[in-house]
């Protein structure tokens, strides 16, 4: 009986494959290649086929027989044969596939190598068997047509019901949907307690305490001279703290643990600091050696693919643009598969296009669950990329999710705009029970503090119209992270004035 297996790749690994298409090989023959988010329907007879996926010359999954049965989500731990014909090296990416035929699952055997490497296992795989509860959206994604709106889980290639037909004609890219970032875990990967650093009489930062959770993108904001870079250098063991304590990647921050900590973290300083007479690959090879990496070529290729520089490996760094050098710097931080990446002003001095590329790369790393400590004074960057932010101005001024900080610092309010300034706004707003207070922003524009803008808006509108005001607009006051930042930093400036 011929049925249809529908295969969809929603993420082609986290390494060498990069953006390359994955070839779907059925019974030894390439039937088609899939890019991210693309789907293919395969006419198959259950129990008679073997499937593998591969990307490029050297990357291929083991061949897996499959047959109709109950469904499993299966990890392919792909192997590479990069240099030496007799050495098959393990690589660091994976493709998880689910196959579906006629409402019944095709069973594949999970790859033991894949299971053995805990760093490669994410919750979407480990709990994805049909009786495993289907966490992290894997089963949901498989059981529901993704085009209908369910976003797939990270690192998952899923199958959806399809129809009979030739593979090529049926391949159709699914609409790209933004995937929500993985939820940061609850386990802190960086804990800082009352950390202080002084250079003589000058205090770089004082009594700083915070935690960064695994998989989180943590923004560290502050004006120039606030102590951001010194904090990063301290946590990266380049500088000894004056007092306080910290645990970095589970290791106490002490001079004796310097080597061990530096082995577990990576830091990209503001300037990438590349050797301009060496090629991109040679630069990375050097750092791979310093990290004592085994199979450095695989890591280098993976890191370059991750920053979309796979085709520039042989270029001299001196010939690269600033944006590309920044990308090489990012690739360098990826080499050691760090527990935390410290990115110090990664877009400093970049033009908007290059900065956006770096944003996309950081966002990509976040999707992969990499813990990132990002220092910046670009607030749009922090708002866009960070799960939580801390604002530092020698002391830690605040910490939290951008939305929570806005809520903490600014009362909810309505912005009311009238054609002409109100005659007696005091009396008018005092007569409206929902209004707690108000202030004149400028001629004809008022900020009206209310408990719940949504509930209060109709009453305020009625009151204004009833008082004969020509209302142009009423809307909820929107405060950006920039407002939060300026509010806090200005407070410090005001406090320092004699």
């Amino acid at each position, binding site marked *: 009986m011929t049925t249809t297996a529908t295969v969809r790749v929603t993420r082609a690994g986290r390494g060498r494959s990069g953006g390359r298409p994955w070839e779907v090989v059925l019974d030894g023959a390439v039937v088609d290649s899939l890019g991210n988010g693309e789907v293919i329907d395969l006419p198959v007879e259950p129990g008679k086929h073997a499937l593998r996926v591969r990307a490029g010359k050297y990357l291929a999954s083991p061949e897996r027989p499959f047959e109709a049965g109950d469904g499993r989500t299966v990890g392919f731990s792909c192997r590479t044969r990069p240099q030496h014909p007799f050495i098959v090296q393990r690589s660091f990416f994976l493709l998880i596939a689910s196959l579906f035929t006629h409402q019944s699952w095709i069973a594949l055997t999970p790859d033991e190598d894949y299971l053995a490497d805990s760093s490669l296992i994410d919750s979407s795989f480990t709990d994805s068997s049909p009786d495993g509860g289907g966490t992290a959206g894997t089963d949901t994604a498989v059981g529901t047509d993704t085009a209908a709106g369910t976003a797939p889980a990270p690192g998952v290639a899923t199958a959806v019901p399809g129809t009979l037909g030739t593979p090529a004609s049926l391949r159709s890219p699914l609409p790209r949907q933004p995937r929500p970032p993985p939820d940061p875990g609850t386990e802190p990967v960086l804990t800082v307690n009352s950390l202080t650093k002084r250079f003589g009489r000058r205090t770089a930062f004082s009594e700083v305490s915070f935690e960064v959770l695994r998989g989180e993108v943590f923004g560290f904001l502050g004006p120039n001279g606030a102590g951001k870079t010194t904090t990063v250098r301290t946590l990266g063991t*380049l*500088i000894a703290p004056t007092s306080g304590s910290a645990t970095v990647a589970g290791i106490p921050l002490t001079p004796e643990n*310097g080597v061990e900590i530096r082995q577990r973290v990576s830091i990209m300083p503001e*300037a*990438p600091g590349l050797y301009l*007479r060496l090629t991109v690959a040679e630069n990375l090879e050097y750092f791979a050696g310093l990290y004592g990496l085994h199979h450095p070529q695989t890591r280098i290729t993976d890191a370059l693919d991750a920053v979309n520089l796979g085709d520039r490996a042989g270029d001299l760094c001196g010939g690269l643009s600033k944006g590309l050098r920044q990308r090489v710097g990012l690739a360098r931080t990826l080499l050691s598969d760090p527990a935390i990446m410290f990115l110090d002003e990664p877009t400093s001095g970049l033009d908007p296009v290059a900065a956006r590329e770096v944003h996309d790369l950081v966002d990509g790393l976040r999707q992969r669950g990499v813990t990132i400590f990002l220092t910046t004074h670009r607030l749009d960057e922090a708002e866009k990329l960070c799960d939580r932010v801390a604002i530092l101005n020698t002391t830690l001024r605040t910490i939290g999710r951008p939305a929570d900080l806005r809520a903490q610092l600014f009362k909810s309010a309505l912005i009311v705009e009238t054609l002409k300034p109100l005659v007696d706004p005091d009396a008018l707003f005092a007569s409206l029970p929902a209004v707690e207070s108000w202030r004149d922003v400028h001629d004809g524009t008022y900020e009206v503090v209310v408990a719940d803008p949504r509930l209060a808006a109709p009453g305020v509108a009625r009151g204004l119209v009833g008082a004969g005001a020509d209302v142009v607009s009423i809307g909820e006051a929107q405060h950006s992270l920039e407002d939060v930042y300026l509010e806090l930093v200005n407070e410090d400036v005001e406090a320092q004035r004699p």
Partner: protein
Amino acid sequence: MKWLDTNRVRAVVRKELRDYRRKRAIVVTMAVLPILFLIEPVVVIFVAPPTLSGGSLGKNLVLPILYLLLIPTVMPSTLAAYTVAGEREQGTLEPLLTTPIRQEEFIVGKAAAVLIPTMVASYVVFGLFLAAVALFAHPVVATAFFHQGPVLLALFLLAPLLSTWAIVVGMAISVRASEVRVAQQLATLASFPPVVVILLLAVGVLHPTFALALEFAAVLLVIDLVALRLISGMFDRERLVTGAKAV
């Protein structure tokens, strides 16, 4: 705790040698400098009057032979002075310090990367010089030359030790120097003190013997090792990054 990770040391050496190869000025200097130092000894050997008695002729040959020791002494000092100050100046020091490399590994790697090309160049020049003497010098001069056993031993034995001294001193200056040019000038000056012994030999205050060559080599070895340890202590990450000493 492992004191030295050879993989990291090797990584530093490999990178440095690659970097030298790509910088034409370094390659040219490494090729030209030994040749310049070769001119004087060659002239002396080839114009030496064979009519002199064996003893007088031998004395005349000591200085040109020892003059060759300037190659391993002077050649590495500018490169050594660049090791830390240069990295700082081109902005590569901080990324390097964020890696797990220990200061000992960094210093040994950098020193080896300077020592290797220096020794290759020095011994190639020594070899060419000896071959030229054997093949082309007057037989009497050649015989007298190859009877200078202690001096020839000193030539081969002291070359790496003098070189190491110049490298260690150059690196020590490089760690503290604010800029590369200053470091290179100071390093060249600081590489000379051991050459004083050579001058004493040349002017006849000291007499070349096997024992003296070995003693001088032993002292220089001890000094080099102690200096290497001292420079490891000077290599303070905080000072290198911020310019301020860790409190």
